[in-house]
């Protein structure tokens, strides 16, 4: 579903989430995440990801009764959870959001990457 390089970069981030809460690492993580969404969009819809919201709408509108095996259905469930909470990675306001990226990596992204091993 996603490129091995993308997956490895995300696994590194999941392994050390505290390194990605701000600064250059956080920005690089955002880029890798957008790249991953692009790869997922190519996989499911044969088109690039124009925006996170449009991809999220398409994923939520998928007809899950046909065309997907049980592993893919599991993965789609985790993709939905990940997309629903990716605002934690892209927060830009001045509130204290130091733990947001860590929460996103260890709760949502980790579950999705874990589900990928079955696909």
């Amino acid at each position, binding site marked *: 579903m996603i490129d091995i390089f993308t997956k490895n970069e995300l696994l590194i981030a999941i392994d050390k989430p505290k390194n990605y809460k701000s600064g250059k690492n956080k920005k690089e993580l955002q880029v890798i995440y957008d790249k991953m969404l692009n790869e997922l969009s190519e996989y499911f819809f044969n088109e690039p990801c124009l925006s996170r*919201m449009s991809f*999220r*709408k398409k994923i*939520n*509108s998928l007809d899950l009764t046909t065309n997907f095996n049980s592993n893919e259905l599991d993965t789609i469930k985790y993709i939905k959870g990940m*997309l*629903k909470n990716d*605002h934690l990675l892209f927060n830009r*306001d*001045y*509130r*204290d959001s130091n733990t947001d990226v860590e929460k996103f990596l260890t709760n949502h992204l980790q579950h999705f990457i874990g589900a990928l091993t079955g696909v």
Partner: protein
Amino acid sequence: MSENDNRDVALKAWEIYQNLAKGMGESAWKIRSVCFTLNAALVAYSYTSSAPLLYLVASVLSVMFFLMESGYRRLQDQYIEKSIAIELTLNDFIANESDPRFPESIGTDLSIPSFDKFIKLFALKRIIFWMPYIVIFFAPIILYFLDFKKIDTLNNVLTNAC
């Protein structure tokens, strides 16, 4: 309630929170404007009247206005947080989520501003808020210790003598 009704409620709540946050911001700005105007007037008067003690009055006033504005800023922050929580709900509706998130409750009640939140106002990313107050607090004190006052010219001395 249908989903459309839920969406309308969320949208209305968001508008109310935005207006309240905007109102708090405007009040905070008015406090700041009065503080700076008063401070400048006191410094100018202190200089012209050669009464350096008024410099210290200007510094004390800047602390009082800072505390007032910080109260409004903390209330504003709470409305901004409520607004952001509702934005997640609205985004879930836009994204056709089968089970959109909702905040715990929708309401305009606020918690009492805490000391922790007060300390967080001094974060570096909020430098625009506290730096001007730092300047108008220390500048008059420096002027006081430098005994900065209008120097009487010879003409003034002669005029006063006559």
